[in-house]
């Protein structure tokens, strides 16, 4: 054991912020052939960039987002923004993904609903949203669409591709699809093969959406649609992103105090996706605990998660993207995982998280082991956290040091 050296203390330069950023749109006018055989006349990808492209055009770090993520991974859109981009803790001047060194690009995936072409986009042929007539999207389609964006920006090679969860799937696909183009792959909390459990959760989410009458076979107006179904899908999915321990720490059995009842007798007007049943409806006196109102903090929190989701996410996109995740199985697509990785040229780092039960450590280990069996350079690190799948978004100096070291 060569432990003689002490680990150098990490550079303690004060990390800065990316600050104000503006999304941009890349429009591809060339037709796009999906893996399903369906085509689109063209598409738009909304994206953001941070840092500067160097003269050699080879300092590019591509960030790939997860199921419900988007292109806004760092910085803020307005001075008044309370929320930063979803991976702001990792990306910025002096941070692990240092925007003074790297030109960081993140795009909303094809099939998404944050500005990139997806089922909520207008079909030029009909003048109405595509809905379920939108072509089926795969992880590989997302990656191929991103490649067009990078080509349009004149990017000659990728210094690294980084992503967690579904973003990690894209990372692996990048290494397979464009082996000479990518130099480093950093995949976190992900899998090379969506498991039965994963497909199962996705299906429950989809059923919640599709059984909502508002879904109407995917044909619904903007800001309308299966709001209850989508909120329930999100509530359920959110549980899979955390862990028993972290939920118990955050909420335990903490009670939610009942809201004061309206006294005018009329049921409260609710625009909420999940109207709260009142005590009077359940036939019991107000104040009784024997009813189905929100009683626990965790219920209230999940409802909040569900409701804030419907204001930013499209139900059809949720169906398409979860389907893309379901279909992700590199071993099946290429014959075996070793065959899938046969031509990978990049150096890979896979990071698993002990408490991730959606994409458990073993599924992350399997990626690194298959790469190693295929004779590739692949490292595996496992962070001990109790925050579940979302641990990859964790503020962790250990994780930052690992990422920084891998990119150095």
């Amino acid at each position: 054991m060569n432990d003689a050296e002490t680990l150098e203390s990490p550079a303690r330069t004060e990390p800065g912020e990316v600050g104000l950023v503006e999304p941009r749109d890349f429009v591809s006018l060339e037709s796009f052939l999906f893996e399903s055989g369906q085509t689109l006349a063209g598409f738009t990808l909304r994206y953001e960039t941070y840092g500067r492209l160097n003269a050699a055009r080879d300092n590019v770090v591509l960030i790939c987002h997860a199921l419900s993520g988007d292109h806004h991974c760092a910085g803020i859109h307005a001075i008044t923004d309370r929320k930063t981009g979803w991976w702001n803790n990792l990306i910025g001047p002096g941070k692990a993904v240092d925007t003074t060194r790297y030109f960081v690009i993140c795009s909303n995936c094809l099939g998404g609903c944050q500005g990139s072409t997806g089922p909520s986009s207008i079909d030029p042929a009909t003048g109405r949203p595509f809905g379920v007539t939108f072509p089926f999207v795969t992880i590989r389609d997302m990656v191929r669409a991103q490649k067009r964006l990078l080509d349009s920006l004149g990017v000659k090679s990728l210094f690294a591709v980084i992503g967690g969860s579904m973003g990690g799937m894209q990372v692996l696909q990048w290494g397979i699809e464009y082996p000479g183009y990518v130099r480093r792959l950093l995949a976190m909390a992900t899998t090379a093969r969506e498991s039965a459990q994963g497909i199962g959760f996705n299906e429950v989410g989809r059923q919640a959406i599709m059984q909502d009458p508002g879904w109407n076979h995917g044909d619904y107006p903007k800001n309308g649609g299966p709001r209850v179904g989508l909120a329930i899908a999100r509530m359920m999915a959110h549980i899979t992103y955390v862990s028993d321990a972290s939920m118990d720490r955050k909420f335990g059995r903490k009670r939610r105090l009942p809201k004061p009842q309206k006294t005018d007798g009329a049921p409260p007007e609710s625009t909420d996706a999940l109207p709260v049943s009142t005590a009077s409806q359940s036939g019991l006196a107000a104040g009784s605990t024997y009813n189905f109102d929100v009683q626990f903090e965790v219920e209230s929190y999940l409802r909040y998660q569900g409701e804030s989701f419907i204001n930013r996410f499209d139900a059809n996109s949720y169906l398409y993207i979860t389907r893309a995740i379901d279909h992700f199985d590199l071993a099946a697509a290429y014959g075996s995982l070793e065959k899938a990785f046969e031509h990978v040229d990049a150096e890979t780092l896979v990071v698993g998280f002990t408490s991730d039960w959606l994409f458990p450590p073993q599924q992350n280990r399997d990626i690194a082991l298959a790469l190693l069996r295929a004779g590739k350079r692949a490292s595996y690190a496992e962070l001990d956290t109790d925050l579940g799948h979302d641990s990859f978004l964790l503020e962790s100096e250990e994780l930052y040091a690992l990422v920084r070291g891998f990119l150095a």
Partner: protein
Amino acid sequence: MSNAPASSPKPAVKRTVDMQIIADWVEPRSRVLDLGCGRGVLLESLMQSKDVFGIGVDLEFEKISACVKRGVTAYQGDMMEFMRAFPDAHFDRVICSRTLEEVPDPAAVIAEALRVAKSVTVGFVNHGYWKNRLDAFRYGRKPRNDVYKTAWHESRPANPASVADFEEFCALKNIRIARRALLRGDWKTPCNFRPNLFAGYALYDLAR
């Protein structure tokens, strides 16, 4: 005992001796697996001097992080589980440098290492070295010196070995000792006389 006499080399210096002999044995451009790779110092030097394709295994996140930082490929996890994921003779060489003393079942590790690699290099501190025996004799306690730095209750190694123990084990398991290097207490000078008593450090190259 914690302050070592100036004449005796520090473990970090000793380690480079260990590394030099291992480097002499490793074939250029071979595929090397280092079990208990620590921060990847040995693999890094082998990558530089012998252009090996190296992979290290260790249990701790910080170790893997340090490996990744110095460009050494490393895997965090159990070494037995790791080896089981590979076909026979996938590696040219497995290195266990001061690792076997710390595993609960050294025989199983060596057997599995001999399956996944053509040769297995083992390096360990000889617990039978006379100073250790003297320590035990005089104080009736676990040796405390440069190498065995901790009290028993905070101790590594968990399972110290002597030259005699190891060679008896190889004979018992029909493991061929292709090469060995026995060093005196300075971990430099070759030790040719009664190594179980006078060798401070032992290196073996094993083959099936």
